[in-house]
């Protein structure tokens, strides 16, 4: 019987195993279909029913893979089950995972217990070092609460104490001083004057508060009440009692009171009810990096409190900023060795270009490895082995040019880094940058002025031969510099260009031009054409490059279009330029504007369909060429109508329009997503939004326009007029409002634009098709020509479809201004044609005109629309800074990608990587090898100061605090780098990464993920095609390149993807959810200055927490229902 029992047990065991395998297979299938919630329920049920260690573990690992905090409890249950079985190895593995989860959650006490348990099971874990106690000596005292000081000094309340002085210094340097009207000295701005006045008022209040540091007003009649009100600048109206009202008596003081957020309403209420008013007025202690004695001399110290001296001395603030930027250990070395006056003199250089400095064992860490050290020694004049002296000389050299060069090269990695740090090249290119006259240095302006150098070094590409990729050929560039079409770029470069023989010659010229303070056109051409080649299988032919380079000034803004269809041939690109030139030659201004608008709108749709993969790459070239063909020669509006309609037909045919779909339906369906969506509800939401916009803009549908055109044709053949159809157009025309052009004379002089736009609208309002048909009196030719009257309507409908596709969340302008689309000015100012320039927003803040309108081509439409919308966002904090360049970019990054083709495996892939990245950081806290690995990757992304802080925090076991300083894109990169190098996967996230990598390599390879979750980079990469570039986040740079800073931030979409994965939001909803989440993200950003990236991170996480809290409750409720 024993064998029978064994056989039964074996059979049951096999059955259980088979059942478990069956469950896991089902789970995989459900996940693959995107139904993670059902998969979760299945595992939960299995774990609940059997209670076996294996089922519990499967469930725990599933939750862990999705970042669900509930996994901890299930792991604990599995651990208990395993304890009974005596499987120590698996117990250790779970204890280790729980230890990591404790560290990630910041639960140090539990982690301390867990590490012991882990060790007792044979696990190895280093102990973390205790964090050093804060140094009480390095504190600055500010009177009154931090909240009030922060309001006056424009500091975010989210700042950590140790971040306050740096943010304050930045505000003083950028906003605190301005050129004096009377002499050369700087004078304080109103901002800084108010901060000083506030401090003075706060000291008076502090005095009133007395030793208890509490303002206490016992009764309305008490003398202290009078004194308090005097300081605050208010008085009581009406006697004490229920009628008492506070009113201003001293406007200056009252302004400070209210602006600093003194609880005036509470005071008034307490006076009215005769209750004691109690207000804690303890001074604020703010940490500073170094002792006050180091930063200010004894003479200065006599001039008052440190905070006053600090605010009054912009050079001291700059010094503080410079020292803050440095890696702490390096700063300490410099501080010890150099007199403070020395550092102060070059603080501006340290501030902008000191972030990459590192001294190790007394030696400067230089980029380029051992071979470049000698070149650095030669360039700087001091050996890097003398770390302090090296950096001292570096910041002094050439008014900051050397330091900016060091900074730019230190940010590089990979082959370009190796190429540019070859010693001879390093010296050669620096000589080009330096030139003969070094002033003004790149650290002199308010923002870094070496934007072009950073762009060139970061975006340079090497060809297969290991040499820089020069678009076209050397000959093209030689010709461009020698026979420059629009005046010399540089006299010297023009002379020597004839002798160029090597790609480095071109590069040298581009480096030299980085010094120019005027627009650096050659660099822009170089970058634009390099980016075109980057995405193409076959580089552009030299002749094409030559023409594109020469016509860059006129058509350069259009080149990014071709990046959305990399298969476009050279011939079609040239055809585009020919067509644009042909349109420019149309003499009739209205016809020209209509031709440009119609053609650009059709190309815009081609661009969208190519970008989203609706058009197959093999077809995209022919489609674009066929669209353009219609516009090669436009003689009148009838021809233009036919060309526009022809273009629509080309698009419909290429996108395989259904027979039963009307043109407008089909195009809207495609612009809103895919034609046959899997998630009809989400698709309809987008369709509805687009249709509301079209309705708000009163555009005539394509269907009506084409029916009318056909009907005119039919009437010319003798058919009777379809009154209903003609009336439909007439009804729409009646809704078109009069253009609001009542500009005041001041406005008219200042912005004399819009004349042709008004004519365009007027022309439409005058159309009376019925009368035209009557006048034609059956004349077939006249009737056929009448369709030309529909041309302006066709233009507006096609343009409106582009607008609707890119409409930002909220779209207040589009919903409110019914002439916004019709008002698009394709011509611009006379004498300065803007037909082919990037889209710009004009006319904001002019109360008597028709509101803002867009001018120029449609090439920058997504950004311009986002820019128009950004002031409609409502910050959650009254003082929150909405960044001019950052916000539009974030908005367009949430709209352009659309995520139509993202699969559940892809969102899970990103989620897994972010969670695995967190695990690696947790592991680094107790595993020295992991620590080293993490820091190696992090140092390629984060500046040394932040990298060192993270390293320190990890050494102290402060993983949660370290994670706060690591961006989602860094976590993703960290995991991407580590995952393939890890041995056998013991981690559920890693195991799943491997499994997905093997099962669906086409969905989760680097290119596919970059395409799915990257961001558009119109400035940085001349393309709206989303991609991940994994660059370090750029600092704030001068000029147009401040957009680059925003474009280098790639964390949002990765974070949203991981969030969607975590809360089981299907990818089909990303289209709707990400714009919503992004709007919330922007509204919650509370930043102190332009480089306050941590504020974005904080906001990102806040929105994530909110979404989690809401959606997880739903998930849990649904699961509960399913389990019962």
């Amino acid at each position, binding site marked *: 019987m024993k064998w029978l029992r064994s056989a039964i047990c074996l059979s049951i065991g096999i059955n259980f195993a088979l059942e478990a395998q069956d469950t896991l297979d089902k789970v995989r299938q459900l996940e693959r279909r995107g139904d993670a919630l059902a998969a979760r329920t299945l595992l939960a049920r299995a774990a609940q029913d059997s209670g076996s260690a294996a089922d519990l573990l499967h469930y725990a690992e599933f939750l862990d893979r999705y970042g669900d905090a509930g996994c901890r409890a299930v792991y604990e249950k599995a651990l208990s089950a395993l304890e009974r079985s005596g499987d120590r190895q698996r117990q250790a593995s779970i204890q280790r995972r729980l230890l990591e989860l404790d560290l990630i959650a910041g639960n140090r006490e539990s982690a301390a217990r867990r590490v012991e348990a882990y060790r007792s099971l044979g696990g190895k874990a280093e102990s973390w070092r205790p964090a050093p106690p804060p140094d009480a000596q390095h504190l600055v005292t500010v009177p009154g609460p931090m909240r009030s000081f922060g309001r006056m000094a424009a500091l975010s309340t989210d700042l950590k104490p140790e971040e306050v002085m740096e943010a304050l210094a930045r505000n003083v340097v950028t906003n605190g001083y301005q050129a004096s009207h009377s002499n050369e000295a700087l004078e304080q701005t109103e901002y800084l004057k108010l901060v000083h006045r506030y401090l003075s008022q706060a000291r008076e209040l502090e005095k009133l508060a007395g030793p208890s540091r509490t303002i206490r007003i016992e009764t309305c009649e008490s003398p202290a009440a009078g004194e308090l009100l005097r300081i605050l600048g208010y008085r009581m109206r009406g006697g004490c009692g229920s009628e008492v009202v506070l009113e201003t008596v001293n*406007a200056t003081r009252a302004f400070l009171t209210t602006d600093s957020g003194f609880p005036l309403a509470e005071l008034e*209420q307490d006076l009215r009810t005769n209750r004691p008013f109690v207000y804690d007025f303890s001074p604020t202690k703010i940490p500073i990096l170094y002792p006050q004695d180091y930063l200010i001399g004894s003479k200065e110290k006599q001039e008052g409190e440190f905070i006053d001296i600090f605010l009054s001395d912009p050079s001291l603030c700059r010094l503080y900023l410079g020292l803050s930027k440095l890696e702490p250990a390096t700063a300490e070395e410099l501080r010890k060795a150099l007199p403070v006056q020395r550092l102060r003199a070059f603080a501006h250089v340290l501030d902008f270009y000191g972030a990459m400095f590192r001294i190790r064992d007394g030696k400067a860490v230089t980029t380029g490895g051992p071979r470049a050290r000698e070149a650095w020694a030669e360039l700087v004049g001091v050996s890097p082995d003398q770390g302090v002296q090296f950096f001292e000389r570096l910041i002094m050299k050439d008014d900051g040019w050397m330091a900016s060069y060091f900074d730019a090269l230190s940010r590089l990695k990979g082959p370009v880094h190796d190429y540019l740090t070859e010693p001879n090249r390093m010296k050669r290119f620096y000589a080009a940058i330096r030139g003969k006259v070094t002033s003004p240095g790149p650290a002199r302006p308010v923002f870094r002025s070496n934007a072009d150098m950073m762009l060139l070094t970061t975006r340079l590409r090497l060809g297969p031969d290991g040499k820089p990729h020069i678009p076209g050929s050397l000959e093209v560039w030689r010709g461009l510099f020698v026979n420059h079409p629009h005046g010399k770029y540089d006299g010297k470069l023009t002379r020597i260009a004839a002798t160029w023989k090597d790609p480095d010659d071109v590069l040298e010229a581009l480096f030299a031009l980085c010094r120019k303070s005027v627009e650096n056109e050659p660099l822009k051409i170089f970058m634009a054409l390099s980016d075109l080649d980057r995405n193409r299988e076959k580089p552009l032919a030299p002749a094409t490059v030559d023409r594109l380079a020469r016509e860059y000034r006129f058509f350069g803004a259009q080149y990014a279009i071709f990046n959305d269809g990399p298969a476009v041939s050279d011939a079609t690109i040239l055809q585009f330029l020919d067509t644009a030139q042909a349109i420019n030659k149309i003499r009739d201004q209205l016809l020209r504007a209509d031709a440009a608008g119609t053609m650009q709108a059709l190309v815009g749709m081609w661009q969208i369909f190519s970008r989203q993969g609706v058009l197959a790459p093999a077809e995209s070239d022919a489609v674009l060429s066929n669209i353009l063909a219609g516009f090669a020669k436009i003689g009148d509006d009838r021809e233009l109508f036919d060309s526009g309609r022809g273009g629509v037909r080309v698009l419909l045919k290429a996108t395989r329009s259904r027979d039963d779909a009307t043109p407008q339906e089909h195009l809207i369906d495609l612009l809103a997503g895919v034609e046959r969506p899997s998630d009809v509800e989400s698709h309809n939401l987008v369709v509805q939004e687009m249709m509301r916009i079209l*309705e708000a803009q009163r555009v005539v549908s394509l269907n009506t326009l084409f029916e009318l055109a056909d009907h005119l044709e039919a009437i010319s053949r003798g058919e009777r007029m379809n009154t209903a159809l003609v009336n439909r157009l007439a009804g729409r025309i009646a809704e078109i409002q009069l253009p609001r052009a009542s500009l005041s004379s001041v406005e008219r002089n200042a912005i004399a634009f819009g004349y042709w736009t008004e004519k365009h609208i007027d022309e439409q309002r005058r159309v009376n098709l019925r009368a035209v048909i009557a006048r034609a009196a059956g004349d077939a030719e006249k009737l056929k020509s009448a369709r030309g009257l529909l041309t302006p309507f066709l233009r507006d409908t096609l343009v409106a479809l582009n607008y609707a596709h890119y409409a930002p969340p909220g779209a*207040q*302008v589009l919903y*409110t201004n*019914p002439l916004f689309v019709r008002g698009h000015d394709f011509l611009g100012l006379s004498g300065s044609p803007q037909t082919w320039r990037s889209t710009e927003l004009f006319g904001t803040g002019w109360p*008597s005109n028709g509101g803002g309108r867009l001018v120029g081509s449609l090439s920058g439409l997504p950004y311009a629309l986002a820019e128009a919308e950004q*002031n409609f966002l409502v910050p959650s904090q*009254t003082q929150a800074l909405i960044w001019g360049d950052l916000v539009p970019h974030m908005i367009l990054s949430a709209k352009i990608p659309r995520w139509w083709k993202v699969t559940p495996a892809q969102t899970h892939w990103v989620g897994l990587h972010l969670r695995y990245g967190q695990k690696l950081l947790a592991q680094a806290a107790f595993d020295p090898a992991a620590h080293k690995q993490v820091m190696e990757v992090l140092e390629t992304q984060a500046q040394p100061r932040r990298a060192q802080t993270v390293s320190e925090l990890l050494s102290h076991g402060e993983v949660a605090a370290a994670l706060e300083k690591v961006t989602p894109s860094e976590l993703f990169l960290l995991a991407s780098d580590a995952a393939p190098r890890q041995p056998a996967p013991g981690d559920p996230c890693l195991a799943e990464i491997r499994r997905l990598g093997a099962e669906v390599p086409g969905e989760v390879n680097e290119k596919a993920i970059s395409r799915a979750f990257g961001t558009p980079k119109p400035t940085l990469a001349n393309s709206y095609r989303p991609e991940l570039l994994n660059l370090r986040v750029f600092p704030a740079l001068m000029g147009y390149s401040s957009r680059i800073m925003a474009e280098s931030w790639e964390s949002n979409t990765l974070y949203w993807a991981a969030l969607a994965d975590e809360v089981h939001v299907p990818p089909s909803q990303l289209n709707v959810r990400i714009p919503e989440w992004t709007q919330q993200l922007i509204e919650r950003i509370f930043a102190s200055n332009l480089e306050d990236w941590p504020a974005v991170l904080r906001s990102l996480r806040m929105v994530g927490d909110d979404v989690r809290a809401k959606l997880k409750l739903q998930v849990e409720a649904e699961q509960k229902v399913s389990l019962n």
Partner: protein
Amino acid sequence: MLGTWVCARAQEGQRPVFRVKVDMVVLSFTVTDSKGRYINGLKPSDFRILEDGIVQKVATFAEGNRPGVQILDDGSTRPLIGSPSVPPSAKEALGGDAVVGTNVFILFDTSNFMYRGFVYAEDAIADFVRGLDRADSVAVYTFSRNLSRASALTRERGEAIQGLRKAVAGDDTALYNSLLLTLRDAAKVPGRKVVIVFSNGPDNASTVAPDDVRSVAEDEGIPIYVISTNEVNKDAVSSGVFRRITTRTGGKAYWAKTWQKQVEAFESIREDLGNSYTVTYYPAPNPNEGFRKITVEIASDVAKKYRVRARPGYRPRGGF
């Protein structure tokens, strides 16, 4: 106007089509004599409401902050509160069963242009809030480049004043953008509502035009009052705009540079609110899908010399 978006599926192609059903029009107006004194105590039967000349059947009627009444078919009235036969939308339009009074949205300009008079303006607004009828609710919004909802709609005066006192001085002025957002918020609230703008006038950051914003107010039936802290002749452009947006929405514009004048302006608005009549009606069939002109006629002979101030009309939202 209370409108409902209806999403229907057209027969061909099964795609969403949008149509608008105009549920009800809410119309507030004041009646004054030749000397500008408010005329109170008029009855529903004293008025005739016309839309494009078509006489409308009034559904409900209210004077000032007093509870509204339902107008029955025979012309008699019945208290709105507790009346089971009044359609919910009509009750809602007048604030529901329990709610009477006006929802007052104060939009306070805290931009650079207001820097000098900032604190005095705050005092004047605080006084106005304190003096509002107990039945009224008030929201305080502030703006410079962006809008800030300092205090949500509340009947607690202390809350509103607390929000007001937390205002922070800002930089650029996007008056019309912020006014638009305020109107959008106000439109979501049932009952009678007004927006009071307190501003210096100039706008240097809005992307929407004042007249487009005015259209929204007109269509939603929300009167706009403006208190400008500038002199009427100082900024002719803004003054003209203020006049247009207030007159066309049934509100009023005041130029009050001094604190005293500001207090007077607020007093005048308060009187306006307390002395206005509010009627609701379901528009009679009208083929006009564009701007519909509203006329309020006083039927009684004795009152023929009275002057009625109401919004001139509205535009029903069209179909697609």
